[in-house]
């Protein structure tokens, strides 16, 4: 997490080492970088192949940002915080402070729940045996522990914004050094025996320094010597310690506290506790004796562990603005006594928070290895609760813009990581146009695993009015089905895409396939196109032709011939289908029972002469007289021009027959 240990990567393959192990990279969508070997070429270098060209394989490496969230346990943090984030957006900017505090606690409880799950999972045998995973878990626990600790402190200082910080800070310190509590519980359970245990007094000291007075008292009262005057006096002192409560007159409290303080010091000086040196040390701690606290600091692990306790005994009514001075004094003191201890980044961040240096804090928060989960959600919360608005204004930080860019980055990250895409929408949705544009770009990039998933994506696109994305997904699936020779599926996706050209192309294919082979592809789909046919005139033709085909198949010749004539007249017949359509008319013209009237026969003849003849002529002029490869083919005839004469003959015969029957009809 420090600037010094930025992850580095080198290629080191044969080709790269030859050019001095240099590399070049290209950013790919989804926080990936494609890396390959590189040789520096300038305008003055000679444009010739190197001597070693072609000897080594060119390898392209994909470098990807590693994230903690590959671990399934951690996904719940993302999913749950996503829901909380959405709640916060709905809450808006004008809610009461209590509501923001509640949401802040929800965020923290998410992290705590996750920490617990992580601890549990870490103990499981499948993680214990896998070293890489174990390390990942340890990392994750560290990161989220830090996140919770910092969030908690932030909540106390800047979201709750109470005038009294010491009690909350005590809670904070107590939560983050839970070991002392655990050991105290052990002591309590041991009852009287506890007095003999080796670390009895050291535990009591740490409890006092954490400000846990009640528990200390309980343990002391179980001591074997509890009946002795020294213990009784100590109990009395601890019991009578004034605790400031909100609404209490500050002046009055101060005088009480002063009195109690002086009284306790006096008692210690009179040697009341001389028989119990350990007990005396504890009481000296309580009076804020510098010597004792210095000694304690030397023992402590973490510099902020005992600060709240120290404040409790020296400055119980500390205000947030006074904390700044107290904290920096404490820090200086700590460093003076423990110069060998290096400051960790979490301590640095705690210092920044206490020092009211939010800007640096945010900067550091972004360096946590949690793909900006912490900083994004925290900044969003800061923005909403509006507590720090004046701070950001004074420091010339555009908070809305900062929040916007953080959320945008985080949302894009989620959208591009392969199975977190659903969570990304909420973040990008609140980024106005940029978010919309990002969704538009990233949505079609999500791999389509199944049609069900595709329909989910389409639904999401439709909700946002992204017609283009919807169309693109449908088109991809249509093409995919087409390649798999699933024409019914392809046709339906094409209809869904509402793309005129695509629908026409698929319908064309089906018609051409029919005129070549006489097989109708996917009849079940065409039969059910219904009102959707009006997307493309070609589809209308296909549907209507299919209707004709069905009439013909079921030997309903009257309806068939009527529909056929309609189709001929409709002007939507594609050029290549004329021969097939006219050949279809032939059996109807030649049928025993007359089905086509004189007027319609003339129309058919007209079409033969005006549509089919020009086509054939154009064909002849293109391919020569004895062309074998015509564009227009029908499975029923070898050569298209053969049918011309047959058609003319059939029309003439039917016309003759029709004229006679029609004109000899009895007049009603």
């Amino acid at each position, binding site marked *: 997490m420090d600037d010094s240990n930025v992850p580095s990567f080198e290629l080191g393959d044969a080709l790269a080492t030859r050019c001095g192990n240099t590399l070049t990279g290209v950013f790919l969508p989804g926080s990936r970088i494609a890396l390959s070997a590189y040789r520096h070429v300038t305008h003055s270098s000679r444009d010739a192949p190197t001597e070693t060209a072609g000897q080594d394989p060119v390898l392209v490496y994909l470098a990807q940002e590693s994230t903690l969230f*590959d671990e*399934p*346990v*951690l*996904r*719940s943090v993302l*999913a*749950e915080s*996503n*829901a909380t984030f*959405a709640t916060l957006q709905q809450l808006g900017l004008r809610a009461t402070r209590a509501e923001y505090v509640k949401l802040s606690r929800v965020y923290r409880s998410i992290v705590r*729940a996750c920490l617990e799950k992580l601890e549990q999972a870490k103990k499981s045998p499948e993680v214990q045996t896998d070293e890489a995973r174990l390390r990942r878990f340890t990392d994750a626990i560290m990161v989220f522990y830090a996140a919770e600790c910092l969030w908690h402190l932030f909540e106390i200082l800047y979201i709750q914004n109470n005038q009294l910080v010491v009690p909350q800070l005590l809670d904070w310190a107590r939560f983050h050094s839970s070991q002392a509590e655990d050991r105290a519980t052990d002591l309590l359970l041991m009852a009287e025996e506890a007095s003999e245990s080796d670390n009895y007094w050291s535990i009591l000291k740490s409890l006092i320094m954490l400000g846990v007075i009640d528990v200390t008292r309980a343990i002391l009262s179980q001591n074997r010597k509890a009946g002795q005057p020294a213990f009784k006096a100590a109990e009395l002192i601890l019991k009578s310690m004034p605790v400031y409560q909100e609404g209490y007159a500050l002046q009055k409290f101060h005088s009480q506290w002063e009195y109690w303080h002086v009284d306790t010091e006096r008692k210690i000086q009179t040697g009341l506790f001389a028989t119990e040196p350990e007990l005396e040390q504890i009481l000296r701690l309580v009076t804020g004796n510098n010597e004792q606290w210095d000694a304690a600091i030397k023992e402590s692990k973490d510099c902020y562990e005992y600060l709240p306790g120290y404040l409790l005994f020296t400055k119980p009514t500390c205000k947030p603005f006074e904390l700044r001075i107290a904290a920096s004094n404490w820090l200086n003191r700590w460093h003076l006594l423990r110069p060998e201890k290096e400051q960790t980044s979490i301590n640095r961040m705690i210092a920044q928070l206490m020092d009211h240096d939010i800007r640096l804090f945010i900067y550091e928060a972004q360096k946590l290895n949690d793909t900006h989960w912490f900083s994004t959600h925290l900044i969003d919360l800061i923005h909403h609760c509006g507590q720090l608005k004046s701070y950001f204004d004074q420091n010339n930080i555009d908070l809305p813009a900062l929040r916007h860019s953080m959320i945008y980055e985080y949302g894009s990250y989620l959208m591009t990581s392969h*199975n977190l895409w*659903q969570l990304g929408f*909420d973040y990008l949705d609140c980024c106005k146009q940029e978010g919309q544009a990002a969704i538009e770009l990233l949505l079609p990039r999500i791999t389509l*695993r*199944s*049609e*069900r*998933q595709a*329909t*989910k994506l389409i*639904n999401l696109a439709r*909700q946002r009015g992204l017609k283009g994305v919807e169309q693109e997904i449908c088109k991809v699936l249509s093409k995919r089905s087409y390649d*798999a*020779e*699933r*024409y*019914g*599926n392809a046709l*339906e996706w094409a*209809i*869904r895409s509402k793309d005129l050209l695509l629908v026409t192309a698929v319908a064309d294919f089906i018609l051409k396939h029919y005129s070549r082979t006489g097989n109708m*592809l*996917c009849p*079940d*789909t065409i*039969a*059910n196109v*219904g*009102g*959707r046919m*009006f*997307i493309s005139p070609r589809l209308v033709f296909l549907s209507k032709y299919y209707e004709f085909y069905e009439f013909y198949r079921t030997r309903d010749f009257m309806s068939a011939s009527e529909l056929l004539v309609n189709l001929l007249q409709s002007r939507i017949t594609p050029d290549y289908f004329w021969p097939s359509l006219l050949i279809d008319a032939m059996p109807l013209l030649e049928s025993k029972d007359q089905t086509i009237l004189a007027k319609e026969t003339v129309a058919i003849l007209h079409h033969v002469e005006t549509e089919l003849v020009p086509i054939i002529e154009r064909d002849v002029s293109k391919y020569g007289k004895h062309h074998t490869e015509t564009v227009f083919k029908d499975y029923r005839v070898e050569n298209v021009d053969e049918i011309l004469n047959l058609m003319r003959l059939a029309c003439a015969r039917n016309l003759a027959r029709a004229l006679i029957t029609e004109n000899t009809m009895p007049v009603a």
Partner: protein
Amino acid sequence: MSLANVSTHYISEKVARVRWLPEQLQQSERFVTGSWDMDRNFVRLWRLQANQYATATESDNVDQTPRCMDKVAMEDDVTAIEFVDNDTLAVSCADGHLSVLNVQRAVEEDQIQRMARSGRLHCFQRSQESAPCTDLSVYGTDIATAGEDGCVNIVSVANVRQVKRTIEADSMALFSICYVSQQELVTANRMGVIRLLDARVATEAQPKTTFTVASQDDKSSNFVSSLATHPMQQHILLCGSEEGSITVWDLRNLNYPASYLSAHQSPINEIGFHRKDPTKLFTAAEGGEVWMWSENKVLGGDSNKNGLSPWLSGDRVRSLVDVEGVLSNIRKAINSFDVHGSRLVCGGDTEAVYLVDHIA
């Protein structure tokens, strides 16, 4: 519904299906979930346990939390789960296979394990790639699966490796399948076309009975995402569709749909009656809603007496059936739900399961 108590449990998995374990005499305390779109997909067995963090003071306490007892890794997305008997469940997968899993109930640690896995039931003819199996339906010991390749396969639970019958039902991807009776199946495809199939005969001899789901706009496609039949009156078929509406068909009269109700604003992912109380219907939608439809006893009269279900009463359905929201404002898809007794469990793309107590 004021008594309904919803608790949310994040499980780090997108839930494709969720089912209660069948229990005859008591409220079921175990359920199974199947995940989708994860690096590794699992069928997990959960059991409700007393919440160890419950505090006596807070009013909005969660009494029970699910704990994962056991899991079975699946090869691909889980698409459907259905129980065949009390301990056996059929799981269909997006790699075109069907698995039979077995649950062993125990006092301490329940177990779930795979008993058998079918051959590849669904694949695309040309590319010979696996086609996702999209849904399954169980009748007795028969399991029917539907796939994106448009085929329907029927296998027996005792021997899933042997396919009893394959029907090439459709040239389009099938989205849902449902047994109407031992012999009759209905399938629905992406265009909203519902087909009645005969489980006894081969593809060529299939009856050509089709009907289309109703839609607000007949110019756009409206797929049927879920089918359900009435548990007592099996001729009543309810279809949940893409536009969020419910079309009810009376299978004795296929000329026109019996009723049409516009409901959700997003596709209905699952529709189903309460297992024991057929006066209640539930729907779960992509938009993150679960609704309960209950027959209005006062207005509808006793439906069992006159044999006329309010679902078949056309435009009057709205006045005979009350709708109430069980869950809303989840914002992401609820993919599946199941009701047992007075408890509903549902899950979806929020990677959480929701437990709702005291349903009605």
